């Protein structure tokens, strides 16, 4: 089937004039420029720093990808709706702080507590927190018809304020939360299995599970199909009998839940949490989505693309680390990546004249 297709395409290609051929080739190169740049970068770094392609480094990249994947999976839904969510990083911060303050041995935020509540209770609590922020975002977008940018800009500030207030509670006085309970740390960073002595942490498995769940939601449910419909033409979706408001609210709530999961995992992964936990996570997540083909045009995106996007971004960051590129320079590079990726993406949907 696919062989036939490629054969057909090859024949079609042969039939084109040389001018058209050149154009096809340059189109192909441009549309995949991001991947090409990344592949070239990887090759270059592997040659410069052979340790980059050794197992510990690979496992490191995979672990980082797993850690950043949930937030990207959440934010992708908002982008499919032609929106965005810049409150994502702060929600990660808040939920990481809540998790770290409760699943600890030192209870600075709540001095009257003597033992940690069950992990499941805390997990469900942070999910609820994420869902509430998501609901506020989604409700404002759906019912007040505000642009998601302005809505999440506001909630981002609100959530940041809440984090700072929360960290002032008890005897903590705004300090970094650490001394996490062993159970919490083991659940998240415990060893899933080891390859040649290199441990793969458990949260890699969680990321895989979340990816599968999100794939099912996006592709196999009415909610998923409705989300894409609303993203590509809200008015038409309304006329077609889609509950547009509910769909928007659910997308943002689902996103909030994914940020909460990211926060819960991140607290234990980093083994501490403070007011800056999760800062700018949304940038990486949005960049990953755009690289992975989730378009700001709306109504377009695939889970596999998001996974690839996050992976590629982490490879680049890890590689730049290997080359000991200045950390400040990383921001410049990240910004450029988002800009170029968006430009390349937009190019695909422009109508040729």
């Amino acid at each position, binding site marked *: 089937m696919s062989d036939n297709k490629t054969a057909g395409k090859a024949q079609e290609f042969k039939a*084109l004039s040389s001018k058209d051929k050149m154009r096809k080739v340059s189109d192909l190169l441009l549309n995949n420029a991001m991947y090409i740049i990344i592949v070239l970068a990887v090759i270059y770094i592997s040659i410069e720093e052979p340790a980059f392609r050794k197992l510990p480094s690979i496992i490191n990249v995979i672990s980082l990808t797993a850690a950043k994947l949930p937030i990207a999976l959440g934010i992708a839904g908002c982008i499919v709706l032609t929106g965005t969510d810049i409150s994502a990083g702060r929600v990660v911060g808040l939920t990481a702080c809540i998790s770290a303050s409760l699943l600890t041995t030192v209870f600075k935020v709540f001095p009257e507590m003597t033992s940690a509540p069950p992990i499941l209770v805390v997990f469900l609590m942070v999910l609820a927190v994420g869902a509430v922020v998501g609901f506020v975002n989604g409700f404002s977008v759906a019912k007040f018809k505000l642009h998601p940018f302005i809505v999440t800009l506001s909630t981002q500030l609100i959530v940041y304020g809440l984090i700072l207030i929360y960290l002032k509670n008890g005897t903590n006085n705004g300090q970094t939360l650490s001394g996490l309970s062993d159970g919490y740390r083991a659940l998240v960073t415990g060893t899933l299995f080891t390859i040649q002595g290199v441990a793969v942490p458990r949260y890699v498995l969680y990321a895989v599970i979340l990816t599968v769940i999100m794939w099912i939601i996006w592709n*196999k449910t*009415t909610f998923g*199909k409705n989300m894409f*419909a609303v993203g590509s*033409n809200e008015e*038409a979706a309304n*006329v*077609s*009998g889609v509950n547009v408001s509910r769909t928007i609210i659910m997308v943002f709530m689902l996103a909030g839940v994914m940020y909460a999961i990211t926060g819960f995992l991140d607290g234990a992964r980093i083994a501490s949490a403070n007011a800056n936990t999760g800062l700018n996570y949304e940038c990486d997540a949005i960049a990953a989505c755009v690289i992975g083909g989730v378009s700001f045009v709306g109504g377009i995106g695939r889970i596999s693309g998001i996974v690839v996007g996050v992976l590629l971004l982490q490879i680049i960051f890890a590689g730049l680390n290997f080359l000991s590129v200045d950390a400040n320079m990383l921001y410049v590079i990240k910004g450029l990546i988002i800009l170029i990726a968006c430009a390349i993406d937009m190019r695909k949907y422009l109508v040729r004249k």
Partner: protein
Amino acid sequence: MENQEKKDVLLKMEGICKSFPGVKALDNVSLTVRAGTVHALMGENGAGKSTLMKCLFGVYSKDSGHIYLEGKEINFKTSKEALENGVAMVHQELNQALKRNVMDNMWLGRFPKISKWCPLTSESKMYAATKAVFDELEVQVDPKTVMSRMPVSQRQMVEIAKAVSFHSKVIVFDEPTSSLTEEEVEHLFRIINMLRDRGCGIIYISHKMEEILRISDDVTIMRDGQWVATRPAKELTMNEIIRLMVGRELTNRYPEKDNVVGEPLLEVKGLTAAYSALRDVSFVAKKGEVLGIAGLDGSGRTELLENIFGIATRKEGEIYLEGKRVMNRNARESLANRFAMLTEERRATGIFGIRDIQANTTISSLRRYKVGPFLSNKKLSEATEWGIRSMRTKTPSQRTQIRSLSGGNQQKVILARWLLTEPEVLLLDEPTRGIDVGAKYEIYQLILNLAKEGKTVLMVSSEMPELLGVCDRILVMSGGRLAGEVDARNTTQEEIMTLAAKYV
């Protein structure tokens, strides 16, 4: 021919060719427009009319061929350059800055300055100049009105006035009457005749043959990117044009009405809209009936359908389906009550452009394709396949983006979407707008087949022959009210027009 006045050739396009990857859009097309004449350009959608015009205006660069304006070869690179050289176009889809006012739009890109020494824009000069053009054209519009507050017809008048203000020698009208009422069409024709008498050359693109035969001097017909014929309009008949356009005889423009009207199904009582002019509309529609809704633009036809379907807010009124009251507060509720609605603005409220045929077909009936909590790919593609087959949609595959299909095929996909919800009442708002003749016939056939299955079809249309050809009864709206009802079998266009003007 001998006694016909020999007029100067104003615009001459010769041997124009244009290819897009995989398609030859224009193949050696020629067009000659004489000064002081209206030259109609006809052809089915996709025949290449728009492409030819885009080559003239430099939107596309032609592959070969020559264009002469008053004997001088020209090759415009932008539509601005064309405008400045006296070639203007009144677009079918208006590209206007809707948030700005009329005069801002008129002088956009060439705002008059207060003086050479004071390079600020002069509002008073703009106002006076705009007013002058409007007076000349008998357009009653305040130049300070914000565009978005005006109906499409007036916005179009502004576009025409803009073309006139450039002292254009050649003016292209692309489907100018598709959103105009009869009265506005008359006004437009007066303007066109005026421009013709001044010696302008008019290129008139339209699907409406009655208009073409009335207004034009010459007719050029295109088919599949090729020139077919250029003849004086006097020598042509409607059937002849159709034959040239489609390349075959269309014996019937409308399929045979063989539906049987049955028991009453839908009853609407005292329907009044909260935010539009619709007032106190009551009627009964029967099973197996095609009920037409005629009226001028803005007479409340669209609003009537929108209020029945619940996508506009009702103030008062009741809707009964088989004697049982239905609320239809929003599209979801209407859908559950077996109503379906094809909206007027296909691109804005119909299609999901970047999504594929399957997504576009199944969106309204997703719950039918569930196996357990999840959607079944097999069921989705079966439903889509049914839609493509029963509508005879021309598409390479289910995975094709809907926006790459022609208007008629897009319309078929949306029809399939609604049929999959198994509706009893279909509300169709201008179902054949912007669709070529062949596809129109197929849509008529589909509508009549639905009626034959016992469904009730309410159909709004601006084309009266279409209503007469397809419907059983016709409701005539006027000024937001129901002006009357006629039997399509024994009424005339004159009778409908009289009713339509009742409350204006």
